[in-house]
């Protein structure tokens, strides 16, 4: 149904490393999102984009950054990873317009920072 891909699925790295989590969708969706989720907790919106060259911070403060140079691609970067960044990162997309609608999620990246 939905074609949205995240890589890698799992990532274990050491403190201080720079990482980029990849997210791509083939549905031509304008809107894309990054959520962060810890076990037993809600999904928190950390970044979103409503189109190329448009990015905004979400409700949860995050040290990560994002870019949207192409419609289909919405990577998330951590310049210097720390153990507090250990979490699941979920990318999502939705169609055009401002009407509320469902999001399509990727499979997520489980990040562990040692």
């Amino acid at each position, binding site marked *: 149904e939905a074609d949205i891909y995240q890589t890698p699925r799992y990532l274990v790295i050491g403190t201080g490393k720079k990482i980029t989590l990849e997210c791509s969708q083939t549905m031509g969706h304008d809107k894309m999102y990054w959520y962060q989720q810890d076990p037993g907790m809600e999904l928190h919106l950390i970044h979103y984009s409503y189109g190329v060259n448009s990015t905004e911070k979400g409700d949860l403060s995050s040290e990560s950054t994002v870019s949207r140079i192409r419609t289909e691609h919405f990577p998330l970067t951590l310049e210097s990873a720390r153990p507090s960044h250990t979490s699941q990162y979920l990318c999502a997309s939705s169609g055009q317009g*401002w009407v509320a609608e469902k*999001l399509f999620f990727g499979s997520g990246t489980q990040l562990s920072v040692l």
Partner: protein
Amino acid sequence: DQQVKQNSPSLSVQEGRISILNCDYTNSMFDYFLWYKKYPAEGPTFLISISSIKDKNEDGRFTVFLNKSAKHLSLHIVPSQPGDSAVYFCAASVSNYNQGGKLIFGQGTELSVKP
């Protein structure tokens, strides 16, 4: 300030019986509500949604009920199956230019359906 709340962290039911998952919200501007199902280390998958102009939406074994005056919605699964065992998230959104598409999630309820 949590705008969407799922007060039951877990629920256990017997196969074939009804599962009822509950969700409360505080923001009266929410006009679209959704339920997602999630397995560990996987992304959420969409189950069912409801607009604020309705009070019920049904899709196969899944029915969502919305009570706007009480700011409450519930998901009914009948009959429950072992494959339904997962974490269920309630989410809400507002249809306007700045907010459209941004979903606010509850903490999730872990459903266990026992054979």
